[in-house]
């Protein structure tokens, strides 16, 4: 019984990883933009657009990789629109983000219907048009070993390649942020853009590079949604994940590893709520799945209000830079 419970827990962790992958990619995307001082509530729109373009191109061309590349390109275009409005024209970053979310909602369905005439969906993708799980070496050999065997099979191996990509992106983000010239300048520009400017570095170009990176990561997240986790695009398939990722960025205090943990926590809540649905838990009663799904938002509000922990956003966030 206990080992059955442990096994179920392990499987829930496994599901957590799958559910958290788009959150992780989106949240890393958010870190770049927000660390450079640009609020990005358009993670949601970019995620949606990425998912749509990935599935569409994969479906039309039959190549999942081409789909992913085009997804990235489309998200970079959206990011550049955001940058054009917020950096070049010093527009309101929230308004611009909202506009992009609306554009993404409208464009994906409009173009989807025009292309496929399937109510805004893409046709279901075949196996060659999707990213597939990757089985690692020695899975069967290790199966015999207790504890390690199941962990290796369920938790470590047999994930989609983009799951691994997402996990790799966390240290990549951290390295980029903390070990490179670009990262140093990026962190500085979100705090004191004047310092970067007075050090002879262009604030504008730096911020553009940051939003481009945001687009890049969002594109991957979108591709995961429609061509790895799913098998095709359905309208509004991002379903608020971009906002959860934003919440994770805030919750993780704009730092890659804590943000990863926040994503995993939020992913775990979702995975667990899926599995606990309709199940009576001793003492608690029926699992409060709505509460579990709303918990990321509630926790973020409490954090922002300073009731739990402390949130320290980049100092210059939201303010257009003007000499």
């Amino acid at each position: 019984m206990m080992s059955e419970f442990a096994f179920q827990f392990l499987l829930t962790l496994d599901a957590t990883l799958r559910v958290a992958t788009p959150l992780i990619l989106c949240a890393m995307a958010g870190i770049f933009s927000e660390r450079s001082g640009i609020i990005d509530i358009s993670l949601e729109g970019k995620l949606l657009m990425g998912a749509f373009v990935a599935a569409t191109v994969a479906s039309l061309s039959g190549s999942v990789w081409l789909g992913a590349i085009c997804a990235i390109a489309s998200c970079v275009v959206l990011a550049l629109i955001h940058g054009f409005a917020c950096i070049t024209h010093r527009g309101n970053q929230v308004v611009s983000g909202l506009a992009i979310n609306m554009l993404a909602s409208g464009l994906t369905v409009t173009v989807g219907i025009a292309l496929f005439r399937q109510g805004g969906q893409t046709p279901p993708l075949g196996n060659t048009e999707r990213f597939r799980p990757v089985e690692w070496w020695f899975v069967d050999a290790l199966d015999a070993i207790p504890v390690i065997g199941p962990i290796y099979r369920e938790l470590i191996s047999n994930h989609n390649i983009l799951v691994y990509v997402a996990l790799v992106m966390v240290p990549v983000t951290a390295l980029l942020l903390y070990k490179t010239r670009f990262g140093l300048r990026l962190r500085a520009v979100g705090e004191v853009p004047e310092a970067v400017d007075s050090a002879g570095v262009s604030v504008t170009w730096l911020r553009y590079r940051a939003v481009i990176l945001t687009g890049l990561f969002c594109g991957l997240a979108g591709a995961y949604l429609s061509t790895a986790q799913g098998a095709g695009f359905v309208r509004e398939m991002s379903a608020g994940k971009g906002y959860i990722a934003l919440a994770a960025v805030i919750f993780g205090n704009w730092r890659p590893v804590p943000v990863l943990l926040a994503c995993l926590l939020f992913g775990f809540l979702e995975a667990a709520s899926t599995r606990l649905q309709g199940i009576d838990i001793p003492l608690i009663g029926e699992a409060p799945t709505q509460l579990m799904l709303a918990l990321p938002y509630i926790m973020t509000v409490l954090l922002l209000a300073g009731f739990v922990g402390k949130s320290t956003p980049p100092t210059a966030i939201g303010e257009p830079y003007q000499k």
Partner: protein
Amino acid sequence: MTSAPPLPRWADVFVLPLINLFVALSVCGLIVLALGENPFVAIQVMIKGAFVYPGSLGYTLYYTTNFIFTGLAVAVAAHAMMFNIGGEGQAYIGGLGAGLVALWLAPMAPLVLVIPVAILAAALFGAVWGLVPGYLQAYRGSHIVITTIMFNFIASAIMVWLLAGTLMQPGQQSPHTAQFAVSGQMPKLHDMLNALSFNVAASPLNLSFLLALAALFGFWVLIWKTRIGYEIRAVGQNPKAAHYAGINVPLVIVFALAVSGACAGLMATNEILGVQHRVVLNFTSGYGFAGIAIALMGRNHPVGIFFASLLFGALYQGGAELDFEFQSITREIVLLIQGMIVLFSGALAYMFSAPLARLLARVLVRSKPVEGEA
């Protein structure tokens, strides 16, 4: 530091928004063209669908009603320089308030009692849902934008929980409450007009439309005619000067957000009391977000908000017509137009400001000198 000459007020208020709207619509027109349809024909279809067909004007004004309320919600907060993007959640919770009153009071009280109480409840519930983020911003320093986004999701979770649980009508297939008794249903305008022997086509347009017009007027009075409105504007335009003037800045922010939430909550009177006659899931369906576009286009002024709402009402109603007429364009194009309008009238609002100012300066240079120049 490009210092363009100042833009004349009339150009700022009328010309610039029209240019922005024109550019937004032009881009959408190009997209329609890319989809292989004629954008001019599409516009014709939309105009016919919004105004010409019998009953279509009623539908247009019914949508307009929603937009007036959510546009006002954004505008009230905007006057205090607060960005309330929580209209969606505030309207949702407002619907809960209206619904609870209508469900409990309607079976035992007459319409003249139930409807006003339900309207008040909608406003009150919405106000609470706006007040909390306002408080957190004013006294705890949480970013109002993030908090209101989160409150939208929290509202949605609460409503799903209630509608699929306690409030769900027993034995029903979908999560919504039981239908309100007749005294909990806002009278439809066509019924009233037909009773006065005018012959009007049926539409969901109901008394809430008049309430919306009253709200527009009330908004104008509140912001420009009252002391608290003066304080709201002062806080928004210059919080330091407001502090100097003895205004309790945080309190005014909380108040503005509460009024803002109340406006959004009133949207529920149209949807819930006026049309659905029961609390249903997702009845806000994006109206709260559209309110941002309305307020941006309407320049936070009641007249502007009215016309922007009318435009959006026509887009929504006319957009549905596209589904009937075209294979490749659907009403989702409306979302696209909405997005373009927010982009060009909001984020890129001043892209054309400097060029326009230069152009006008060149044209008007001989007409008259500017008064009171420093």
